[in-house]
């Protein structure tokens, strides 16, 4: 089909002026991909889909959303009321908002699966170090965008979540107070904070789009890893991206959209995990809710923060827990990539996945002494996983690698 279109006169005219044929060939029809990719390799294209969905729904929501903490006659605020107006009065406004809110969680589900796949199959290892590092930058920007976006409905969770996080920066010595005031535009979270968070919430996805472009470009230079982690030889163990993986990705999109639309239409709040119930209470700067927790995708890092008695140490360790991802490619010295052939690493990485889930659970729950201890143990392993990597390959006996995939 595509080759027929590429023979048309119109395409020839465009090609002469853009080099479209060379791009399509090098990026799609003659872009070689290992033939043995499993479904874990679907999450990259899904992440791109969700990014597009978030940008499109976000643009339409911004046509009605008003970032102002000014009070209305009803006693609420313009921002809170504008969100409720989107839900009640704007045509399909409920759909757009639920798509956007569920999309935020879906984005993190997909991206965490994508990252987990990279960890398990050693996709972060040479020559893909920079590809991984660009990916970590994307993760950080996503978390920033999600954090900024969460303030916008101006509910209780929005307000107090932003208060807690901006106060974190205040813990840093010397520059802390400066950064805090820079974020808040005042001495507490208020109207100026809401305005700048809206601006940044619009900016960050643009950054994401650009950096995702860099991520894909970097991928197409070093090519995809595969479940065996072996270097592949073009032609023998590869197939062209189009039509083989376009079709497989399209199938993944179908499965994803089935689940996504089910949640959007039938369970958009996901029992308070995707949209917290307390956030339907308008922001009140004089009353903190009984229990505040970030949305699920930020709770692992929230637990790391809470695990330390000293405020400064907690903030630094939370920062370190993300920063350590940047140096992961240089910590792991093993020549073998995939956990399939690394019995010790395989157990370590599975325990790491469980640890992150445990951290997430602890961060979502109200703090108790038991959970605090569990959180501290999990935090310890979180860092131990990374710091043990340079030692592991000294004693790990890897399984024999196959000749060819």
């Amino acid at each position: 089909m595509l080759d027929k279109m590429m023979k048309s006169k119109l395409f020839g005219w465009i090609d002469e002026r853009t080099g479209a044929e060379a791009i399509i060939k090098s990026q799609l029809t003659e872009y070689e991909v290992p033939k043995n990719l499993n479904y874990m390799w679907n999450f990259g294209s899904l992440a791109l889909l969700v990014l597009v969905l978030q940008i499109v729904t976000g643009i339409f929501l911004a046509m009605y959303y008003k970032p102002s903490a000014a009070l209305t006659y009803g006693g609420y605020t313009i921002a809170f009321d504008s969100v409720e107006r989107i839900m009640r009065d704007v045509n399909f406004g409920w759909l757009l908002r639920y798509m956007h809110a569920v999309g935020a969680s879906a984005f993190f589900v997909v991206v965490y699966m994508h990252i987990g796949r990279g960890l398990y199959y050693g996709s972060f290892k040479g020559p893909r170090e920079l590809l991984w590092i660009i990916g970590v930058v994307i993760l950080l920007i996503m978390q920033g965008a999600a954090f900024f976006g969460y303030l916008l409905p101006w509910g209780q969770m929005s307000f107090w979540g932003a208060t807690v996080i901006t106060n974190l920066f205040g813990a840093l010595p010397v520059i802390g107070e400066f950064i805090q005031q820079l974020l808040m535009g005042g001495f507490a979270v208020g109207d100026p904070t809401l305005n700048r968070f809206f601006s940044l919430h619009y900016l960050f996805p643009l950054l994401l789009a650009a950096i995702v472009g860099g991520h894909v470009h970097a991928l197409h230079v070093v090519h995809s890893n595969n479940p065996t982690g072996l270097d592949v030889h073009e032609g023998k163990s590869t197939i062209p991206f189009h039509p083989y993986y376009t079709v497989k990705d399209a199938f993944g999109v179908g499965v994803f959209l089935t689940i996504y639309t089910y949640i959007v239409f039938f369970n958009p709040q996901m029992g308070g995990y995707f949209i917290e119930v307390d956030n339907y209470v308008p922001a009140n700067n004089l009353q903190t809710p009984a229990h505040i927790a970030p949305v699920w995708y930020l709770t692992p890092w929230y637990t790391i923060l809470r695990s330390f008695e000293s405020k400064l140490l907690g903030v630094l360790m939370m920062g370190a827990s993300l920063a350590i991802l940047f140096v992961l490619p240089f910590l792991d010295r093993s020549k073998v990539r995939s956990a399939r052939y690394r019995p010790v690493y395989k157990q370590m990485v599975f325990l790491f996945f469980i640890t992150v889930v445990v951290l997430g659970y602890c961060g979502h729950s109200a703090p108790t002494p038991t959970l605090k201890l569990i959180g501290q143990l999990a935090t310890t392993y979180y860092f131990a996983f990374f710091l043990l990597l340079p030692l592991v390959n000294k004693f790990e006996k890897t399984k024999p690698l196959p000749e060819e995939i």
Partner: protein
Amino acid sequence: MTDQADQSRRNFLYVAAGGMGAVAAGAAVVPFLGSMLPAADTLAASKTEFEVSTVEAGQLVVIQWQGKPVFVVNRTQEYLAQVDGHDDMLKDANSEAIEAVSAAWMDTPEKRKYRSIKPEYLIVVASCTHLGCIPLFKPTKGRKDWGDSVPENWPGGWHCPCHGSLYDISARVINGSPAPHNLHLMPYKYLSDTKVLIG
């Protein structure tokens, strides 16, 4: 492998799958475009009540209906007399050219001339039919009060400051104006003797 495939069947599948995808994408456009149409609360604000007795004799008041300006004029006997005698200057003396300048209650030549349910109270949309500016109210006859901004045989009415369109005291457009039509009417009715429901 590809060489043995039945290409016509394969092409059918391509078109069928692509077609379904296109239908789904088309359906997904509905909520997005739909969301840009006026919201329920905007539509709810589409009716306005107004007490015409608050307009003094000879006075013009501009009110809002659906966010648009609306003229309410209390025409004196003198003004009402200015409606006659210049039909040859008008593009559409009987307000028949388009639906927006006409109304169901315009069932007599009198009402077509005065363009209002009660002759003294003219209620029209205050947007020049050329490009939407609000015309200036210049009700008295001749150039005495208005200088050469109006023609010598000025019957009294409105003069649009943007591109010079002229309307008579029944808001009917005068020949030579860039505006194509008389000022539009909007649906309205009298709830009581002096209370009007616009919309």
